Every structure is written in structure tokens, then in C-alpha cells.
């Protein structure tokens, strides 16, 4: 397989960029200050050593990645004008654009790419992104060659967005610990379309146009002010009165529905397919009644997802039938979705030998929830399971670490949880289902302690299958098995929405939402 993408000239890149957003069919205007909002304070601004979407939004402006993705999951050239994977899938060659410089004016070279990969590999929490990369060779200034121990299709997504920021070796390679480097928060020297003006904790991140950005004419905006507003209701009012132009990752459903009525605003769920956040009901598959797959299936039949979507999410979230986000091309929608069926639920419970006692109760279960916003789902599960004779106790945790300790320590029966896909299943999905990732004390490992030899094998194979169709087939089977055995019962996608003032052109609606470069965003006159 020879997957060679012809190098594109800047002009054609520009044309295709404009064409891909031709819905607006508007000539971008230059200049202006975009006011956006962050709902938390980032720890710092260097995504090489910090994941999460709060660092991602400013991080993807400050740092450029080798490639970027369009709305249809197609990779596009960015800092790498072309890339090539060898036939055996063990070598990936990146050709860098020639005119790219860092914010301090020094050229961006293959040395910096090698340094960035090393830094990310050593410090980023997602070890699976670059685990198969054994070395990065630098035959010349503009060529970086990634050597792999096995084919690694997840590498493409791992080289995009905030996941692989190219950071300058001459700044971050000065011997200090990159995780606590002072220039992660101030005097950031980046490679992206915007440079840092000021970062004030709990107040704002101010970015300004980098004039020597390697893509001619970009970015369009002069300035981006990311205001830090921790209360989504206050943020919504700011959008409604025009003070704020753009907000991403909004998930308070009542605010979302209210803003939909505002004629100056556009409210859309587009842009969250790669982040891929899913709410789910996780089971302890080793201890207690939920160790029996029949009990888990019965619970799935008794919980009415339709109610959750309509009454709790007020129509702002979509159904999720498997652990892969429905927006991903690898999603398998043909699996059993467990539509409400109380008869089946009762029959399954009887079959599992969990007969009703004199009071009509079969057994008791506990349900945990990690943060207040998913409490309604937990309360609903309690009410729903009452109907089939399961007596559920909702167990509250005073804060996130308390919950994380319980679930990470496998001290739970059921819990409502939210987990992110992070682009490729190898990065964010495998961790939940691989038996090798049953690690006591680690939240978002395989805390369900689910073990299935075929699933392990499928994920192992899919992780290194270079052929897209074959890979899809492997994930299809994986989704069938897990949807049948239900280590977790997937409820809905997170109701993440992007809200923007209609003055904003080319809002960040690609697969990475605001964790993607906003060089094409502009403000209409």
C-alpha cells in the first residue's frame, strides 16, 4: 500500500479550504478581535505535556501540528506539506514546509519534530499515541522519518490537532522538566498561527496574529481573546447579549436550548466527533450480580434511553450504541441498541436465577456518579430498575477525586461515567476493554475488569492494521461482541455544542472543535 499524498501548493490548499467551507460562500475578511470563552482555567498552554480540551483551545492556536483534519476525517497538509507511509507500515516520512518559523523567528526543522515526539512520548498521559515509535530520524532539515516497531494507523490522528504540537527544541529542550517549564504559561514560543500576548489565570488568554505564519495570508483574525468564564449560565448570557462571539464545549442543556431561540446565534452539535465524549453506565463485571452478562443485558433493556435523550438531555444529545462515537467512520450502528423491553428484562433476570422475593425485589445494587451533571442519569437508573425488581441505591461522592478513588479501586457495582475517544480508538477506546489495562487505582483504565480473549485479539490486530477496510471490519466485530456482553451500557453522546454569533465566519466545526487551528476563522464586517 502506497499512501502518498502529493504535496499541495499553498494556493491550492487555500482554494480547497475555501471550497470546503463553501456553505458560507463568503470572502473572508481580515482583521478584528474574536472573543471566545473557556469554561475552566488551563493549567498551562503546552499541549505536548498536557492533554484536555481547555489547554487544547489555546494550544492549537499557539502550536502547529504536522497535519490537520477537515470535517470528513480526511487528513490535510499543515506543517507537513506531504507524508508517506512505507509498504510495510514501519516508516512514516514527513516533509515539512520550508518557510515555517517559530514565534521567535527561528526556523522549524526536523530536529524540532524529533524533539516534540520525544517530549510527548515521555510526558503526555496518552502513552498509546506514540508507543510504537522507536526513533525519529532527521536525514535533512525538512524531512523527519518516524520509525515504528509495528504498523500504527492511529498515528495519523495522533499527529493532528493538539495531540502533536511542534515545540522548539532550543526553548523547551534546555534541560528543565517540560511538564513544569516556565514557558508553558508565559513567553510561549510556538509554531502556530497565533502567538501569546497574555495569559492571566481565571481571567483570559490573549492571542495575537503571528505575522510570519507559514500559510500565506493567514490567520485572518488580528486577535483572539479567550475569556475564562466558569459559569456556563453567565457565558450563555454573554453570547446572547453579543459580548462573546464563540463558545465551544457547552453542555448545559437548558442554556443550549434557550440560545437556540436567539436569532443572532447559531447553535450546533457539529465538531465533536474526534473528541468523542460518551456518557455510559459501567458495570463491575467481576463481583456482585452484574458479573452475569444476563443481568447487564436485563438492566440495559430496563433502562429507557429514549427517556434519557428526551427528558434529561432535552434532545441535545445523540444515541450511542457502542464505545466508538457515532460520529466516527468506524462506528457500527447495526448492533443491538437495547430498546426498552421490560418483559425481556424480567425474563433475563429470571433466567439468571435472580427470582423476585415476597416484596417483589430481586436484589440490590449501588450506582455511583462522578460529577453533578450526570446525577440525573443515576437517579433515573434507580427509578427504571425499580420496575424490574432491582433496588438501586445512589451513592454520592463529595467530589471528583473521591469518586475516582472508588471506581479506580474497583469498589463499585455500577457507575455513570463520561469517557472520551480522543480521535482514534487506539488512543481512547482500547483502554476501557483490553484485559491488559485492568490496573487497580487508575481511573479510566479497564475499571470494569472486563476480560474477553477475542476482544483483546481484535483490538491488538486493529491497533496495527494498516488497511482501512480490514481495520473497520475488526472494530465492527469488537463492537458486536461488547454490545452483546455489555461491560458498559452506552447511553448517549455528551451534549457538547458550539455556539457562535452569526458574525463569525468559518467557526471551528471540524472533527476537533476548538482544539484545531482557527487560522481560517474570521469576523464578518
Amino acid at each position, binding site marked *: 500500500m502506497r499512501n502518498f499524498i502529493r504535496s499541495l501548493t499553498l494556493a491550492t490548499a487555500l482554494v480547497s479550504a475555501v471550497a470546503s467551507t463553501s456553505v458560507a460562500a463568503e470572502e473572508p475578511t481580515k482583521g478584528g*478581535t474574536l*472573543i471566545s470563552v473557556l469554561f475552566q*482555567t488551563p*493549567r*498551562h498552554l503546552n499541549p505536548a505535556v*498536557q*492533554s*484536555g*480540551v*481547555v489547554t487544547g483551545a489555546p494550544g492549537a492556536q499557539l502550536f502547529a501540528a504536522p497535519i490537520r483534519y477537515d470535517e470528513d476525517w480526511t487528513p490535510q497538509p499543515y506543517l507537513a506539506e506531504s507524508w508517506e507511509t512505507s509498504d510495510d507500515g514501519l516508516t512514516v516520512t514527513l516533509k515539512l514546509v520550508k518557510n515555517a518559523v517559530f514565534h521567535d523567528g527561528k526556523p522549524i526543522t526536523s530536529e524540532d519534530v524529533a524533539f516534540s515526539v520525544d517530549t510527548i512520548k515521555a510526558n503526555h*498521559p*496518552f*502513552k498509546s499515541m506514540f508507543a510504537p515509535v522507536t526513533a525519529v530520524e532527521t536525514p535533512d532539515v525538512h524531512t523527519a522519518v518516524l520509525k515504528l516497531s509495528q504498523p500504527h494507523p492511529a498515528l495519523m490522528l495522533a499527529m493532528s490537532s493538539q495531540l502533536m504540537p511542534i515545540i522548539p527544541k532550543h526553548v523547551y529542550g534546555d534541560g528543565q522538566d517540560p*511538564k*513544569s517549564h516556565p514557558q*508553558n*504559561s508565559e513567553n510561549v514560543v510556538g509554531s502556530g498561527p497565533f502567538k501569546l500576548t*497574555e495569559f*492571566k*489565570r*481565571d*481571567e*483570559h488568554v*490573549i492571542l495575537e496574529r503571528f505575522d510570519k505564519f507559514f500559510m500565506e495570508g493567514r490567520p485572518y483574525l488580528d486577535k483572539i*481573546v479567550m*475569556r*475564562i*468564564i*466558569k*459559569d456556563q*449560565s*453567565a*457565558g450563555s*448570557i*454573554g453570547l*446572547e*447579549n*453579543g*459580548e*462573546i462571539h464563540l463558545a465551544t464545549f457547552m453542555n448545559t442543556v437548558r442554556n443550549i436550548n434557550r440560545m437556540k431561540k436567539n436569532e443572532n446565534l447559531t447553535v450546533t452539535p457539529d465538531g465533536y466527533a474526534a473528541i468523542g465524549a460518551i456518557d455510559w453506565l459501567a458495570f463491575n463485571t467481576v463481583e456482585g450480580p452484574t458479573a452475569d452478562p444476563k443481568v447487564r443485558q436485563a438492566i440495559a433493556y430496563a433502562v429507557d434511553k429514549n427517556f434519557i435523550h428526551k427528558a434529561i438531555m432535552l434532545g441535545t444529545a445523540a444515541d450511542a450504541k457502542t464505545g466508538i462515537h457515532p460520529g466516527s467512520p468506524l462506528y457500527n450502528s447495526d448492533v443491538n441498541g437495547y430498546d426498552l423491553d421490560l418483559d425481556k428484562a424480567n425474563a433475563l433476570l429470571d433466567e439468571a436465577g435472580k427470582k423476585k422475593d415476597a416484596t417483589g425485589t430481586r436484589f440490590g445494587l449501588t450506582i455511583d456518579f462522578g460529577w453533578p451533571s450526570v446525577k440525573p442519569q443515576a437517579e433515573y437508573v434507580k427509578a427504571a430498575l425499580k420496575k424490574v425488581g432491582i433496588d438501586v441505591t445512589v451513592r454520592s461522592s*463529595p*467530589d*471528583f*477525586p*473521591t*469518586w*475516582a*478513588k*472508588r471506581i*479506580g479501586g474497583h469498589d463499585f457495582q455500577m457507575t455513570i461515567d463520561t469517557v*472520551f475517544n*480522543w480521535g482514534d480508538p487506539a488512543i*481512547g477506546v482500547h*483502554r476501557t476493554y483490553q484485559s491488559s489495562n485492568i*490496573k487497580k*487505582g*487508575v*481511573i*479510566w*483504565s479497564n475499571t470494569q475488569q472486563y476480560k474477553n480473549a477475542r476482544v483483546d485479539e481484535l483490538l491488538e490486530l486493529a491497533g496495527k492494521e494498516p488497511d482501512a477496510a480490514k481495520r473497520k471490519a475488526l472494530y465492527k466485530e469488537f463492537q458486536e461482541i461488547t454490545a452483546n456482553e455489555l461491560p458498559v451500557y452506552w447511553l448517549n453522546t455528551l451534549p457538547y455544542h458550539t455556539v457562535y454569533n452569526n458574525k463569525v465566519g468559518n467557526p471551528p466545526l471540524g472533527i476537533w472543535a476548538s482544539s484545531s487551528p482557527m487560522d481560517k476563522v474570521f469576523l464578518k464586517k
Partner: protein
Amino acid sequence: MNFVSIIFQRLLYAALLLTAVLVLNFSMMHLAPGDIADTIAQANGGADAEVMEQIREDYGLDQPFPIQLAKYVGGVLSFDLGYSFFYNQPVTTLIFEKLPATLLLVITSQLLALVVGVLLGVFSARNPKGASSYFVTLFALFGYSAPVFWTGILLLIAFSLKIPILPVAGMRDVTIEGGFFIHALDIARHMVLPVITLSSIFLALYSRLCRASMMEVLGSDYIRTAKAKGLSDAQVTYKHALKNSMSPVVTLAGIQFSAVVSGAVLVETVFSWPGLGSLALQSIVARDTPTILGILFFSALVVIVGNLLTDLVLRMIDPRVGSKG
């Protein structure tokens, strides 16, 4: 007992109290399940086992409790509040970075509450049976019982959305350019709603207390004497009565200063006011132990100093206080 020995005695108590606060806070934080490694994993959207072990090692969380405690207390004694786990910054830097914004908010709110509260109290004490007096009582009761975050959001909807004259959040508009005066005006605009929200609780307290104490004073003999002398109503109220009824209000204001910090947490969160309250909430959510302990230590210090000052001031204005001690 003379002044100097009283101050000396108080300072000794204060030092003991602060040490107790330190040890107790540290122990309580240690008892809580979960730690910063979990919240860093959360901020990251997940983390591998080795990463979490590394975090615990980096921050010394793998050491036994007595050693962690000894290290911390030793650090504080040498004026080092430690390093914030979450922000990788010295805690003292963070606190002093946020302090001015909180002081501005808190002092303005206290002054507003005190002035308006006393005026309302006097007003309703003069006609305790009038309709306006009931209105003041109702108003005070509403301010006191409504949760501040609710008052805050309501004010936002009213004055930022329905009648869009005030900004929704933050302390300044960074897009504004101009001199000192323009920036001061901008901060003042951003302050209006948070100050009203925060002062609404204290306003209720002061107006109720002032009303009660005023009514008591207005019934006393020397007021009757003053009236009999032929002084005007206003003179009697503001020159004679108010002075004497202020003492409990001042005491309360001194004590309330500690409550203001806790009130500020909510108000600052609703209005994204970049102060200590925001920092406190953020560090509690993130289980950023050094920062929480630093803020608690700092609050304890403020309360102790505040009480000491109130005590001394009361001794000065009212010779009866402490005369037997």
C-alpha cells in the same frame, strides 16, 4: 492589664491557634480519599498507571503521613506555603496575585452594605410601624435568604441580557484601550453586579441589627432629655442615638469580615471575578492541597488579625469593655 501585655497574650494565642489550624487542615485533607493524581488525570481526559505513579512521586504523595506533615509545617514556619500542584506556581505568588481583586470586591461590598444597611436601619427604626419599615424588613429578609448565586444570575439576566447595560463576567474588558481613567471606569462597571450581590447578604444583617439597637436607644432616657432640650429630630437621631447604637454594628462588621471570604467564593464564581474565591474553588475541585491549605491558612490569619483589631478598637471606643479583665 495594660495594652502591651494584652497584645502579647493575644499574639501567643494566635500563634498556637494558627499551628493548630495548620495541623488540623493538613490532616483533614489527608483523610479525604483521592488526590491530585486523579484530578490531573481528569484534566487530561485520562492517564496511564505509570503517569499517575509519577505524579504521586513528583509531589511527594507516596511518603508517609508524618513526614509529609512535618515537611509542610516546617515549610510554613519558614514562610514557604509550598508549590501549587495544579498550576506549578508558588502558592504565595498565586494568593498575592488574586488578593487585590478580592480585597477590592470585599471592601467595597462591606462599605456599601454598612452604609446602606445603617441608613435603612435608622430609617425603619424611626417609623417602626410604617409601611416603609415593613418594606425594609422584607427587602432585608429577601437579601439574606436568597442564595447569592441565584441573586447573581437574576441580576445578570436583568442587567446584562434584558437591559444590556452591564458586562456579564470578569473584572475588565481587555479590548478597551485608553488611559487610567477609562480602565478604572471599566473595572467599576464590572464591579456593579458582584458588589450588589455580595453586599445583599450583609446589608440585611446590618440593617436588622441597626434597627434593633436603634429602637432600643431611641427609647432610653437621654434621648428623651435631648428631645426635651428642643433638639430637632434629625439631630437627636444622627448625633445622639446613632453613635450609641453603632457599637454592635461595628462588632458584627469586624466578625463578618471572615464570612466575606466564604461569600466571595460564590460571587466570584458566578461573575468569574478573578479573586481568591475563584482560586479557592478551583483548588478544592482539583484537590490542589498546597493551595487549599495556603488559602485556609491565610483566611485564618485574616480572621485572627480581624478579631484582634476589633477587640482593640472596641476597647478604645468603649472603656467599659475589658475593664474587669
